[in-house]
C-alpha cells in the first residue's frame, strides 16, 4: 500500500476531529445560553 494513503487518512482525521470539536463547542455555548435564560 502506498504510504500516501496514511497521509491522506491523517488529513481527513484532522478535518473530522476539528468539525467534532466545533460541534461540541457550539453545543456547550447554546446550553450555557439556555441555562442563563
Amino acid at each position, binding site marked *: 500500500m*502506498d504510504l500516501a494513503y496514511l*497521509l491522506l487518512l491523517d*488529513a481527513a482525521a*484532522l*478535518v473530522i476531529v476539528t468539525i467534532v470539536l466545533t460541534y*461540541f463547542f457550539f453545543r*456547550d455555548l447554546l446550553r450555557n445560553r439556555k441555562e442563563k435564560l
Partner: protein
Amino acid sequence: MLELAIVDYIIIIVYFVMLFTLGFFIKRKVHDLNDYFLAGRRLTLPIFVATLVSTWYGGLLGVGELSFNYGFVNWLTQGFFWYLVYLFFAFFLANRIRKSNLYTIPDQLERFYDKKSRFLGAIFNFIMVTPAPYVFSMGLIFSIIFGWELWVGILLGTIVIVFYTIRGGFFADVYTDFIQFFLMMIGVAMIIPLAIQTYGGFDFLTANLPETHLTLTGGWSTQMILVWGFLAFWTLADPGFYQRCYAAKDAKIPKKGILISIGFWVLFDICTTFTGMYAAAASNAGLLTVESATTSYVSIASALLPPALMGLFLTGLIATVMSTVDSFTFLGAMNISHDLYRNIFKKEATEKQVMNMTKIGIVITIGFAVIISLFFDSIVTMWYTIGTIGISALIVPILVGFFYKGKKSPLASILSMITGSGTSLFWMINGYLNLDSWGWPQYIGGFEPLYPGLLASLVVFVIVNIIHTRRMK
C-alpha cells in the same frame, strides 16, 4: 506578492470583519476582573483545546522552512519531543495548576517563595511572552500576500488585535482563537489531498528528495537533535499553558484538554511536515518555483489550491500567527497590571484601576514587540534567544516549587533565576562574538547556552537552599 482571485480577498476581508465584530460584541460578557483576566474561569473542554492548540502554534513559516530544508526530522524535533513534555505537563502539572486558583506564573513563585521572586519572575515572564517573533511573522505574511512593506502589515495586524483584546480581554482572546483554530486546521489539511493528486504518492517524494529527508534524524547530529529536544522544556514554564489551566471550568479539564490537544498537534504536525517535503520535492523536480525555504509553504499552496480555497488557506496562515500574538500580548499586559502594578506597586488598586492598567499594558507589550521585531531580521534567532534566557531562569524555581515538599529558600529562587539566565546570556554573547567561518556562533565547549544555564540555575538553587534553610531554622 501573490496573484489572488477576488474571492480570496473577500475571504480575508470577511475574516477581519469577523474579528472586529467579535471584538465589538464580546465586551458584554465582561463583568469583572475575573472575566477580563480568565474569562470567568469558565473555559469548557472544546474551547480549552482550541485556544491551547492555536496559541501554541505560531510558527508555521518556520516549520515549513525546516521541513523544506531537512525533511521528516522536523516532526521529531518540533513535534515528538514536545509531545513528551506535554504529556508530563498533563499528568503532573495541569490539574495542580488549576487547583491553585491563581492567575499567573509569578503568582506561583510568590506562593512558593516570596514577593521578590514574584517581581523577578514577572520580568522574565514578560521577556518570554513578548510577541515579537510572531509580530514579525505577521508582517512577513502580509508582505507575501499583498506585497506590502513589513511595517504596514505589522501596524494593521496590531491595530485589529489591540482593538479586540482591549475590549474583551481573555474572552476576546479565546473566542477569536476558536475561529483561528478552525481555519488553521482546515487550511493545513486541505493541501495534502491536492499535493498527492497533483504530484503523486510516496514514490514522488523518494524519487525527488535527498535520502536524509525521509529518515527520522535527517542526518542531524545527536547533539543538534537534543538541543531542539531541550527547547521543548519551554512548555513547563510557558505562561500561555498556565493561563489556560487557570481559566478552565473545573479541575479535570486541563489534563483531559492537553491530552486531546496532543492528538490535534500530532495530526497537524504530520500535515505540515509533509507539505514542506512535497514543496521541496516538487521544487527539485522542477515542478514548483520556490523563492525561499521560509515561504515554501505559501508557494506550494498557491500552486495547488484553486481560488476560494487559497483564500481560506491564507486566512488560516494569518490566523496561526494572530492567535499567538493576541494571547502573548494579553499575557504581557497581565504581567504589568496584575503581577507588578496590583501585587507590588499599588496594593490598594481597585478592580477598575487594574483593568485600565491592563489596557495600557496591552499597548505597552505590543509596542515593545513591534520595536524589537523591527530590529531582528530572523524569526528563529529571536525565538531562540528569548526562549533560552527565559527558560534557564524560570524552570528550576517553578519545578522545585511544585515537586519539592521540603523547606524552600526564597534567596535560592532569586539567585538561581539570576545565575541561570546570566550564564546562558553570557554563553550566548560569547558565542556570537566568536563566529565560525559559516557565520554560526561558536559556544564554549560546543554546548548550547541552554545547558549551562539550566545547570547553573539548578546547582545554585540546591547549594543556596541547603545553606539558607539551615540558617532560617
